[in-house]
């Protein structure tokens, strides 16, 4: 059995006011997979994401990234390995220009000078946003900001990419660009999303999180065709989407 990219066991977390946000999450993701994380609002999806790079500290359970067990001592390496793209890009693009934002991560890893410049250019090219390098983030469109935020994370060459609602607020063209981009990236991905067509198109496997625990885990098409399961967890197929009918159109991983 190869080392999984991510292995969560019995993860527990409660907020200061007592609300149990995660009540024993178990999840195992292999290298190269793209997994959609679905669930109603308040299920704990974002909270779970914030545990994966140690921003939130668990009350119980373990998280292993590759061969590294997450602990206080190895947070900087964990944060290099796990790239988290936040839901609100304004929270993530905090430098005066995009270029500086993209440089922030690798600079913290110790890159300087020409190496740093090269890494920034590499990350921006990967998301086709090279022309945004000297632009201030608040002058960019939603789609440009999403790509810039993705570049800030890719610049650290992560092993695992976690995206929180990446397609929300994007117009159809920007969404299509983002989708194509994510499909090209050969990095293990967890995509938190309400965008079920995106989950269907990009992710072979889906996990439903509700009430702080995993309640379903399997092939996306199977999950999306189980209407009663969807209903139980406040999910619903968009009008006109017939997963079974497009089963053969879904591109498979090589």
């Amino acid at each position: 059995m190869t080392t999984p990219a991510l292995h969560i066991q019995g993860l527990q977390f409660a907020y200061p006011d007592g609300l149990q946000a995660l009540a024993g999450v178990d999840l195992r993701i292999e290298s190269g997979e793209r997994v959609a994380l679905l669930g109603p609002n308040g299920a704990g999806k974002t909270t779970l994401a914030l545990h994966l790079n140690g921003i939130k500290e668990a009350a119980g359970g373990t998280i292993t990234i590759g061969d590294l067990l997450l602990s206080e001592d190895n947070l900087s390496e964990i944060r290099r390995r796990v790239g988290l793209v936040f839901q609100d890009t304004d929270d993530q693009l905090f430098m005066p220009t995009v270029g500086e934002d993209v440089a922030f991560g690798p600079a913290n890893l110790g890159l300087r000078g020409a190496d740093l410049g090269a890494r920034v250019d590499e990350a921006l090219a990967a998301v086709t946003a090279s022309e945004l390098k000297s632009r201030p983030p608040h002058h960019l469109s939603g789609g440009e900001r999403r790509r810039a935020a993705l570049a800030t994370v890719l610049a650290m060459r992560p092993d695992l990419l976690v995206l929180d609602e990446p397609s929300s607020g994007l117009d159809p063209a920007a969404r299509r660009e983002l989708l194509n981009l994510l499909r090209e990236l050969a990095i293990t991905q967890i995509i938190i999303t309400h965008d079920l067509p995106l989950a269907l198109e990009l992710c072979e496997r889906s996990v439903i999180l509700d009430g702080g625990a995993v309640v379903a885990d399997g092939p996306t098409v199977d999950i999306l065709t189980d209407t009663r399961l969807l209903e139980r967890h406040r999910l619903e197929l968009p009008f006109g989407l017939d997963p079974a009918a497009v089963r053969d159109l879904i591109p498979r991983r090589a």
Partner: protein
Amino acid sequence: MGAGHAHALYVHEHTLLHHLAPEAKLAAAFLFVIAVALSPPQAIWAFVAFGTALLFLVRLARVRLRFVAGRLLVIVPFILFALFIPFIGSGEQTEVLGMSLSVEGLWSMWNIIAKASIGATISILLAATTEIPDIVRGMGRLKVPAVLVSIATFMIRYLEVIAGELGRMRVAMTARGYDPRWLWQAKPIAASAGALFIRSYERGERVYDAMLARGYTGAMPDLGHRHATGRDWAIAAALPAFGIVVALAAGVLT
């Protein structure tokens, strides 16, 4: 005091002044204004010299005079006050156009008008040729404590975001018929300002999480911006050198 700040003064061009390192420009501007401020108002020729030098620089920076004049409106209230001084000032009086004016007051009026205009013009020129993030970075290179520079950097990143939110709140309130004319009707404004503060604060917490996620360990990393070279300092020194020579001559000759 107030509404004038909203619009950044930067004029996008590629001139010698634009490409000078910000710390050199800041130091030059400060030293020059100090020389101007120390010059005795009686040496009118000195101020003519200063003004000529500034006009030359304004042309060199390809900044339009109308733009400078427009931004100079900020000092108009103080100019108006200065114009009043000869009328209400005490001391030896002289007769001008049938009105009794204070001699001391006339010199004060000239002193304030000359120094305020020249000082404001060099400030406008500095802001027009230097992007705000560069100004802040220049401050840091001039030994302003790193924590202050960091705070200023975040401030300018989020200024437009927050100003925009404040503006949208006012629009929303106006759209629902809110038209306050008296102070006691200001409660909704203050309440929404309070709510915006909370949202801004919570954003600050999320930004910190995003910084942690990209490896932040307490100090802002060096992002590889160009430092001032000997050439930068030499070119920038021309203005304060000129200012000091003129100021000294004015002091000696008056």
